[in-house]
């Protein structure tokens, strides 16, 4: 039996302000996405999804080819590709680079991949000063927290929280108006941009035929990060490749719409190599770090390989009834929501936080809104099967298997099943609400107790579906 760690979620569930914040923010993002992909706004949305999926599938199936092509194109444009097996290798590379170039201050634009390897903490330990420049990420860096959401990292912070954080960490007057708070961040970070030696970014896409890094953003911080400092380093997972610049037409139409409902985000940069002859600005050096960090392990699993299609739009988080209740920090890794629930067990092994794939109602919303058509519900089921099997090998989960066997036996015997339904109706107490919560405490244990902590089992209806069906079809015939 996999037990879901309900006690961890209690704080979030009992905080009405936070519940409201999560609901409002994800609700808005859902609404905007819905408008942006509606047939009037984007008639070929479904064809674009299919094409995006086909491209991702093809790229991953031929990934070694595209990685080498990408590398050759980057080199041809005067950039350098650095291959890293894990976070430690990235830290080593950056530390050496900073030492060689006599650099200390590193401006950073939002990157989930660098969150994944805890890059900031690692760099700080090596006497470097990484500064997040996306407003949400900057707030979180000052607060010492990790992102709450893939695209809205500080979703859980109110303006009053931000006022506290800014006045405490920046020594500025307490300011509670978001517009003024943004001005404070702009002024503080502008100095950092102009003083930094290294600009560190992630990558939304890597284009194989162009040797290009593509960055998608709204604030302009990624543009500043890649324009002002002498050196640009992009850190990207090897799954970020797409074959051709022309494929961007498909992915760019999907990414902004799925993430925030924008047909295009404010800035999209396609960057290839350092600045060229005669250019006044732009970086003098250009590095792309290609990171494995467990991705090749996922690649080997044919059934679940599609987990690597993810373009990090966050739509599955916004639409997930579980994420919307428990929030982002209750997921054990930087990737939260449905995509986190399928990525985490694959990166760390199914035994690590085995509850994740089970904390889902399998409603299917995540798969339906995924712009690259990752069948997340199917991935969840595959992971459940794996976890179930490994428990069986350890001789655990006997009760559950026995219960499901009884259930299957009952379901395949319609007469008996119907009788069970009638019997349940007959046994249920007349008109009483809370019929199971009224059970003596000795019976309210384990999973039943967890269920009853939030709600009761609905009373069985007076007449079953089958009975109603019979009555209605009789009426029709007449």
């Amino acid at each position, binding site marked *: 039996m996999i037990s879901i760690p309900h006690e961890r979620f209690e704080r979030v569930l009992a905080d009405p302000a936070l519940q409201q914040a999560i609901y409002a923010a994800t609700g808005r993002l859902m609404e905007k996405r819905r408008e942006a992909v509606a047939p009037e706004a984007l008639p070929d949305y479904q064809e674009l999804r299919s094409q995006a999926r086909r491209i991702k599938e093809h790229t991953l199936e*031929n990934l070694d*080819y595209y990685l080498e092509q990408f590398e050759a194109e980057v080199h041809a444009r005067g950039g350098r590709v650095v291959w890293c097996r894990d976070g430690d290798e990235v830290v080593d590379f950056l530390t050496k680079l900073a030492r060689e170039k006599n650099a200390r201050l590193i401006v950073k634009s939002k990157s989930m991949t660098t969150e994944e390897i805890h890059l900031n903490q690692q760099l700080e330990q090596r006497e470097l000063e990484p500064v997040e420049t996306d407003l949400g990420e900057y707030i979180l860096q000052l607060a010492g927290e990790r992102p709450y959401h893939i695209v809205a990292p500080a979703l859980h912070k109110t*303006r009053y929280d931000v006022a506290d954080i800014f006045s405490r960490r920046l020594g500025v007057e307490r300011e509670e108006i978001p517009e003024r708070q943004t001005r404070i961040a702009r002024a503080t970070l502008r100095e950092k*941009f102009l003083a930094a030696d290294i600009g560190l970014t992630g990558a939304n896409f890597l284009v194989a035929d162009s040797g290009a890094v593509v960055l998608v953003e709204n604030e302009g911080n990624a543009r500043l990060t890649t324009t002002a400092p002498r050196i640009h380093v992009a850190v990207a997972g*090897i799954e970020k490749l797409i*074959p051709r610049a022309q494929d*961007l037409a498909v992915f760019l139409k999907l990414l902004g719409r799925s993430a925030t409902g924008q047909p295009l985000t404010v800035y999209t940069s396609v960057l290839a190599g350092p600045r060229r002859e005669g250019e006044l600005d732009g970086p003098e050096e250009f590095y792309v770090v290609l990171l494995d960090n467990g991705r090749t392990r996922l690649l080997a699993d044919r059934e679940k390989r599609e987990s690597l299609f993810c373009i990090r739009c966050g739509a599955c988080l916004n639409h997930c009834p579980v994420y919307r209740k428990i929030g982002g920090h209750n997921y054990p890794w930087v990737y939260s929501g449905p995509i986190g629930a399928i990525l985490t067990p694959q990166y760390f092994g199914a035994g690590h936080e085995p509850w994740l794939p089970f904390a889902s109602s399998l409603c299917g919303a995540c798969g339906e809104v995924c712009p690259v058509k990752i069948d997340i519900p199917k991935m969840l089921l595959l992971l459940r099967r794996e976890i179930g099997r490994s428990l069986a090998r350890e001789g655990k989960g006997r009760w559950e298997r026995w219960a499901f066997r009884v259930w299957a036996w009952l379901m395949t015997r319609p007469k008996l099943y119907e009788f069970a339904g009638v019997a349940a109706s007959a046994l249920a107490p007349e008109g009483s609400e809370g019929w199971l919560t009224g059970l003596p405490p000795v019976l309210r244990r384990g999973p039943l107790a967890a269920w009853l902590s939030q709600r009761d089992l609905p009373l069985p209806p007076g007449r079953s579906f089958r009975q109603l069906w019979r009555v209605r079809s009789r009426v029709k015939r007449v």
Partner: protein
Amino acid sequence: MSRDHILHKVRTALGRSAGQPAAEPPPVRLCGPQSDLEARIERFLNAVAGLNGKTYRARSCEEVRDYAARLVDGRPAVASCTPVLTACGIHGLPGVRYQFSTRDEFQTACAQAAVGITGADYALADTGTVVLLASHQEPRMISLLPPVHLAVVPKERILSGLDELFTLLPRPSELTSSLVLVTGPSRTADIEQILVRGVHGPGEIHVVVL
């Protein structure tokens, strides 16, 4: 070392061998109805206005210059050296700088400017996007550091959308180290989902179509 290690793991995972060519990729998907120029201009201006950008349709170079003069209003400004700005006489306006000998000088000018003036290599009607290809004539910081960005778009450069752009530029990186699509003013909604413009880039964008 790590390179070979990673490539080896990728190939093992996929059952491929070194040097094996890629299978045929799915055909490129670029379509997009062509509309006539006037319709595109109108759609573009509407889209920019929808993003809270200011728009103006100039009938002559003089009108462009007058618009820029009013906007700059003698304050410090930086302009790129792209031909359309030269043709419109932007460089002769008071306060406008356009020639720099060093990168530092240029960066300082951009950081202190009230307005940055650029051309546009292309524009996308569907989304109200200004497309900028960095070059010796069109550096990156002019559309980025000043709080106000003015883009002068020659009307024949207005395309329908992304499909047409990538049909014309199948491999943009052969032409430029930086292709940037600018769609409206810099914005954030990171604090309580409240929209704030002008976070790191310009909070105000003006688009003049000539």
